[in-house]
């Protein structure tokens, strides 16, 4: 019953922003910091990466922007718990983002049958969990079974980032697991690299949804182990001294360098920046765009973390006469000035206009910048052709007395979503389209964005494998999706592209299908990409070799502190 589709629900990257900070506080604090920093800031220095030989020891203080103590191992989907979870729990396969290759981790090797419905995983020997129990084929099979199907008795839903059609995971010998799908699941091995697919010990597997959400009960084989948790204040993770199964392609082997990672919760943007600048913290997440440049100029390393995800985008669903007309959608596509968006709202060049439906790190990505041009004349022509020729006194286009107007909600989990949408509204106004931007509190977001009168939504989301999320988000068979709810007509061509992707069984077929689907979504303007989907961390000078993994989560294993 749980083998539903694996979509990228927006929650997977929820809370890009620290929205608790009031704008006023931030402004006052920023002004104060600017004034005060002028007195005592250290002179600009070059980024402090790769300085000499790594040394062991020391505690790293990382400031999280909120506390969400939900560490449920099939479901952990939030930024901060995701970062902690990644340090505690290893995965079967490691995605080396630098060389874009998949490398062995807890799985020594793997094979797939020609139609990508059966996979064999050879499990690494000599690995132990933090409770002393050994990693073996049985525990891996048990992990995969619950992730694939969920567990009704324990109240655990299956993981949603896998390809559809999971059937079984069985032990074939002491260190081999066979996995079966009812349909091609080409992206399965890649899905194993996402932290949702982390492998936990038998002890955690037996716990209910609620009990397994507790970090105290999380047994993993990662380079760090859970030490203590003070609710709302801090997590302490300690080095695992006998760790010796790091994947190839990372900086070193053996135990991690850091003795401890102290994760402190600091919800206010200005407080995180201040603590970093005053040396009370080593790494912060969720750096406000306005602070990026200043921190970069005062000796801190600004670490951008690109996502394996959809770009930040507007989705248009064909549930109204206006949005069911491809010309109207295309007009919006060309009315958007992505460069202006990025130049106005961001101050460093790590933010860029989006190039496609998905980010460049996602396998199969194609650069469609050439199609995403700002062309006001073209947009006007398209709208004229669509019959929106009359204008009302405010200058907006009308047809049969109806104004060409759309409602869109800014959402709490996309940083800058409100300023971005407001600027977008100005750009659309130039071609006579009204865009009303409204706020909604986070508990009513889903209902508000899903209401029948809404045709546009701002979105993003992690996509460890593209096939599952694309199917869930766009295929007409998934009638409950936001895109398909209330759709005036079924787009069979779109379905065809999504099916081709789901049915891909090899690299070439998969890449081709992803490319065609991206092109189609852009040509039909179901997706209006805006800008890059990423995170920014700021790192103190004494921290070296701290990087992010393929999913933008901090990879503490290689990090070390200079004395």
């Amino acid at each position: 019953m749980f083998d539903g589709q694996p979509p990228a629900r927006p929650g997977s990257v929820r809370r890009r922003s620290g929205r608790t900070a009031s704008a006023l506080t931030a402004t006052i604090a920023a002004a104060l910091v600017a004034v005060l920093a002028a007195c005592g800031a250290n002179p600009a220095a070059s980024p402090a990466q790769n300085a000499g030989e790594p040394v062991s020891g020391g505690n790293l203080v990382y400031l999280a922007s909120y506390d969400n103590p939900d560490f449920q191992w099939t479901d952990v989907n939030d930024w901060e718990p995701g970062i902690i979870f990644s340090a505690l729990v290893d995965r079967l396969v490691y995605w080396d983002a630098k060389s874009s290759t998949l490398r062995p981790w807890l799985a020594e090797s793997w094979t797939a049958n020609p139609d990508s419905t059966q996979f064999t995983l050879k499990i690494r020997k000599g690995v132990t969990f933090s409770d002393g129990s050994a990693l073996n084929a049985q525990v891996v099979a048990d992990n995969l079974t619950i992730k694939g199907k969920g567990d009704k008795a324990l109240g655990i839903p299956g993981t949603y980032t896998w390809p559809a059609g999971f059937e079984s995971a069985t032990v074939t010998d002491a260190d081999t697991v066979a996995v079966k799908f009812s349909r091609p699941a080409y992206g399965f091995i890649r899905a194993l690299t996402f932290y949702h697919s982390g492998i936990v010990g038998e002890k955690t597997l037996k716990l209910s949804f609620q009990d397994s959400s507790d970090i105290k009960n999380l047994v993993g084989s990662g380079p760090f182990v859970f030490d203590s948790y003070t609710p709302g204040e801090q997590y302490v993770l300690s080095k695992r001294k006998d760790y010796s199964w790091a994947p190839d392609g990372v900086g070193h082997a053996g135990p991690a360098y850091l003795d401890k990672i102290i994760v402190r919760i600091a919800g206010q943007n200005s407080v995180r920046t201040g603590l970093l600048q005053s040396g009370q913290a080593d790494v912060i997440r969720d750096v406000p765009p306005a602070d990026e440049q200043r921190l970069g100029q005062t000796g801190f390393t600004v670490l951008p973390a690109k996502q394996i995800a959809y770009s930040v985008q507007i989705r248009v669903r064909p549930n109204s006469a206006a949005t069911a007309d491809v010309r109207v959608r295309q007009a919006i596509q060309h009315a958007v000035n992505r460069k202006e968006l990025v130049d106005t709202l961001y101050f460093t060049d790590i933010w860029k206009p989006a190039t496609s439906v998905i980010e460049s790190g996602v396998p199969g990505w194609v650069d469609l910048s050439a199609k995403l041009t700002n062309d006001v004349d073209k947009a006007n022509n398209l709208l004229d052709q669509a019959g929106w020729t009359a204008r009302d006194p405010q200058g907006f286009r009308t047809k049969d007395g109806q104004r060409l107007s759309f409602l869109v909600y800014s959402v709490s989990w996309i940083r800058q979503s409100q300023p971005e949408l407001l600027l977008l509204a100005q750009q659309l106004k130039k071609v006579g389209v009204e865009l009303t931007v409204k706020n909604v509190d986070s508990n009513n977001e889903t209902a508000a964005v899903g209401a029948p009168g809404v045709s546009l939504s701002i979105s993003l989301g992690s996509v460890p494998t593209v096939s599952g999320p694309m199917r869930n988000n766009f295929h007409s068979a998934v009638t409950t999706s936001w895109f398909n709810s209330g759709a005036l007509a079924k787009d069979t061509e779109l379905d065809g592209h999504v099916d081709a992707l789901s049915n891909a069984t090899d690299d070439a077929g998969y890449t081709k299908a992803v490319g065609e689907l991206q092109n189609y979504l852009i040509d039909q303007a179901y997706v209006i990409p805006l800008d890059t989907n990423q995170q920014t961390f700021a790192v103190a000078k004494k921290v070296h070799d701290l990087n992010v993994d393929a999913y933008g989560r901090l990879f503490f294993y290689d990090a070390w502190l200079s004395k």
Partner: protein
Amino acid sequence: MKQLLRRAGVLALVLFLVYTLVFVVLVVLPGDPISNRLSDPDAGYTPQTVDLLKQYYGVDKPAALRYAEGLLRALHGDLGHSLADGQPVTGKLADAFAPTLELGGIALLVVLILTALVGLGALYGRVPALRVAFMSVPSLVYSLPVYLVAVVFIQAFSFQLGWVSLNGDGGFAATFLPACVLGITISPPLIQVFVRSLINADRLPHITVARARGIPELRILTRHLLPGAALPSLTVLGITIGYLMSGAVVTETVFTRYGLGALTQKAVQQHDQPVLLGIVVVNAAVFMLANLLVDVVYPRFDPRVQPRFSHAK
């Protein structure tokens, strides 16, 4: 003793009404974390999963039944589980209460010290201008928002001067700094009332007579002025303890401290009904206990009050 029991009964009744009222409000307000998670059309939950999770959390039951069950459990000291992270509400409240008690206790001391200082300054200031300056302190401070004071204090004492470390190893100073912020920002009403009462008492004829008779000023202050001024101040002090709770929300959030304030902020944000219900009930209880305490202490300062207390119907 009988009066005290009666007051305890009233307290229980008010708590019951608070529980009921808050429950109704939370039921009427749309949205909760579970429904929000489940109703996300792109989350891929099958209808069966939705039913399962709803049953698991009991959100599928009618409101009246949930109310009755919740109340019954609450009588046994069980406030249910958080919808956001599944932890027991009583445990969460207990975890949050201790640090807030510490913060609030020190903040209250700060309030008392400030009140005494400003009061005496306004009474004994050498020049009239100084006395006026002290008297205008409350209205000046009253207009400062907590978060502004908090951010300025953090910037000055932690980030720039480096006196207070806020990364978890700051010790007493890490509590004292937010306690000062909290104390300073909630003190104005109390200071105002105390200063007024002190100056009013100072103008009474028997004080003039006492001074004329050459009674030492310290004796006048401790025997005549303070007891007179303490009475109205005591009432305001009870209310100030209530302010501690609301002030803690902002202070704890800005200073990245955990406590009831931080828990409230998060529960409101997440619409975590059981936790919110627990917080409101605990806050109401603290507020009422503080005022009960004031009422009990009152007669010690002014025997005239005694009859009023025992005449309570």
